[in-house]
C-alpha cells in the first residue's frame, strides 16, 4: 500500500490555478523527489498534505487516512521540515524538542531519549545556547531533529537544502539517506543534483501539473525515445566550422567542440559516414547522457 496518495488534487489562489489535477503516490521507504521551479506548486502541495491549506478538489490520503484541513490527525504519521524552519528563539534545542514531544503525546522518558539521540545525530548535542543565535545550517539540522522526533512514517521536506551552503547541503542529504531506512521521505527541490544523488522516485511539477514521473532511469529512458545528443571534438576550429557547414543545425559548445541532436541510431551512422566522405577527422565522438537538468529544461520548454 502507498504511504501517500494524491488523487486529482487542485488548488487555486485568487483565481490563479497553482495545483492542477495532481495525482501521484509514494511507496514506503523510498525517497521521492518532488521537482519544480519556484512557484511550480511544490510548497502548496506539501501544505495541503499537512492539512495547513484546504484542497479545492481531489483527495489526499496518508497511510490510508484522508487528510482534512484544520483537523490534522494524519499529521501524527508525518514529520515536516520546511526550507527555512522557524523556531522559538528564546528556547534551547532540548527545550524545543521537549515541547514537540509533549505536543505529539510522547512520554517524558521517550522524548528525552529521542531528543538526545537526534541532537547527537544532527550534531547539536553539545549546543546549549538559545536558538536565536543559530545559523541557517544549525536551524536546518534542528529542523530535521524535530521532524524525526516522533519516528514519523513519512518525512516531508520542503526544499531543505535551498538555503544552505555546499557543506550544509551535503550534511542534510546524508541525513536524509540515513533516515530512509525507517522513514519514507518526500523531498521537494529545484536543485536537481540533490535529486540525482538521493531520490529513488521523482515527479516533475510544472505549472501545477506533473509532467513526468518515475525512477531516474525511467525518466532518462523516456527521454531517449525523444532522440539523442552527440558531441564531437575536432582538432581545430576550422574543422569544426567545416562540420557546421555540413550540419547547419549543430551548435558550437566549446572551442573545437560541437553538439547536435538526432532522432535515431541510423542518423548517428549517417554522421559517421559523412565525416569519412569529407575526410573530416574527429578526435572524439560522444553520445551524451542527458542530465536531469537537461531533462527538466526540456520538459519546461515543452
Amino acid at each position: 500500500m502507498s504511504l501517500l496518495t494524491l488523487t486529482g488534487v487542485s488548488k487555486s489562489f485568487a483565481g490563479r490555478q497553482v495545483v492542477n489535477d495532481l495525482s501521484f503516490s509514494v511507496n514506503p521507504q523510498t525517497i521521492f523527489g518532488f521537482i519544480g521551479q519556484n512557484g511550480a506548486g511544490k510548497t502548496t502541495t506539501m501544505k495541503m498534505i499537512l492539512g495547513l491549506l484546504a484542497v479545492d478538489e481531489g483527495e489526499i490520503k496518508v497511510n490510508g487516512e484522508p487528510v482534512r484541513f484544520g483537523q490534522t490527525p494524519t499529521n501524527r504519521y508525518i514529520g515536516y521540515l520546511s526550507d527555512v524552519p522557524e523556531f522559538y528563539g528564546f528556547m534551547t534545542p532540548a527545550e524545543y524538542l521537549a515541547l514537540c514531544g509533549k505536543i505529539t503525546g510522547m512520554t517524558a522518558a521517550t522524548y528525552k531519549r529521542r531528543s538526545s539521540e537526534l541532537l547527537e545525530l544532527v550534531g547539536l548535542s553539545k549546543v546549549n545556547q538559545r536558538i536565536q543565535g543559530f545559523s541557517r545550517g544549525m536551524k536546518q539540522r534542528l529542523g530535521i531533529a524535530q521532524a524525526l522526533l516522533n519516528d514519523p512514517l513519512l518525512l516531508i521536506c520542503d526544499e531543505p537544502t535551498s538555503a544552505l551552503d555546499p557543506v550544509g547541503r551535503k550534511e542534510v542529504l546524508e541525513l536524509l539517506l540515513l533516515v530512509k531506512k525507517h522513514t519514507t521521505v518526500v523531498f521537494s527541490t529545484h536543485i536537481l543534483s540533490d535529486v540525482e544523488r538521493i531520490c529513488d522516485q521523482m515527479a516533475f511539477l510544472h505549472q501545477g501539473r506533473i509532467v513526468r514521473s518515475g525512477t531516474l532511469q525511467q525518466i532518462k529512458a523516456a527521454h531517449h525515445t525523444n532522440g539523442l545528443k552527440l558531441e564531437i571534438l575536432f582538432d581545430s576550429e576550422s574543422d569544426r566550422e567545416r562540420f557546421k557547414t555540413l550540419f547547419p543545425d549543430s551548435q558550437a559548445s566549446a572551442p573545437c567542440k560541437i553538439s547536435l541532436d538526432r532522432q535515431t541510431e541510423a542518423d548517428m551512422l549517417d554522421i559517421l559516414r559523412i565525416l569519412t566522405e569529407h575526410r573530416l577527422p574527429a578526435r572524439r565522438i560522444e553520445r551524451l547522457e542527458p542530465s536531469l537538468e537537461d531533462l527538466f529544461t526540456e520538459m519546461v520548454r515543452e
Partner: protein
Amino acid sequence: MRQLTALIGKEGLEVIRTGKATILLLVFIVFGILNPAIAKLTPWMFALMSESMAGMGLSASEIQVNALTSWAQFYKNAPIVLIVFLLLFAGILTHERIKGTLINLVAKGLSRWAIIAAKGIVLVACWSVGYWLYYGITYGYTAYFWDNGAASHLVFSAFCLYMTGVWLISLILPMSIFFGSGSAVMLGVGGLFAVVYVIGLLPGAAPYLPTQLLDASTLIQGDGRLSEYAVAIGIALLWSVLNIGIAALLFKRQAL
C-alpha cells in the same frame, strides 16, 4: 489537555525570557507606587504653584489629600497600564503567524484550539497578576499614609476595572485572525472600544455594555449602587469567553 499545558508552559517561558514579564512588572509596580506618591506630593506641588500664582496676583487655598486622592490616581493611571499591556501583547498571535513558528507544531498535530486557549489563558493570567499587583501596591502605600476606610467598595470597583481589562485583552485574539500585525490588532481593539463607548452614550444602553464598568470608580466616593454594574460585569465576562471561542473557531479555518 497535554497540548494545552505544554503550550501554556511555552507561552509563560516566552513572557519571561523575552523580557515582557520584566517590563510588565516594572510598569505595574512603578504606577502602583506613583498613585499614592502623586497624592502625597500634591500639597507640596500645589504650594510651589501657589507661590508663582501669587506673583501673578492669584491666591489658592491649601489642598487636603486623603486615601480618595490616591485612589483617584489609581483610576486615572489604570488606562495607561492597560495600553502598555495591549502594546506588549497585541502581536501574541500575529507575530507567530507572520514568522511561521506555528507551522512545525501544527504539522505535528497540535490542535489550533489549544493555541488560542493557551494564549487566552496566559494573557488573562498576566493581566491578573499585573493588575492585582498594581492594586495591592496602591492599597498598601495608601493604607500606610492614610486610611483606606475613606474609600467605599474598593475591591468591587477595582474588579470592575479589571473586567474591562479582561474584555479588551480578550479582543486581541479574534482581532489577530482579521489583522496581520500587532499594530493593526491594537487599532482594531481601540476602534471597537470607541464604537462600544459611543453606543454607551445612547440613552439606556450603557448598563449593558462593558464600558459602563469604567464608571465604577465613582463607587469609592459612595456614589452609585453595586447592582448598576452587575449586568455589565456579566456581559464583559460572556463577551470575553466568546472572543476566545470565536477566535478558536476562525483560526481553525485559517491557512498557515
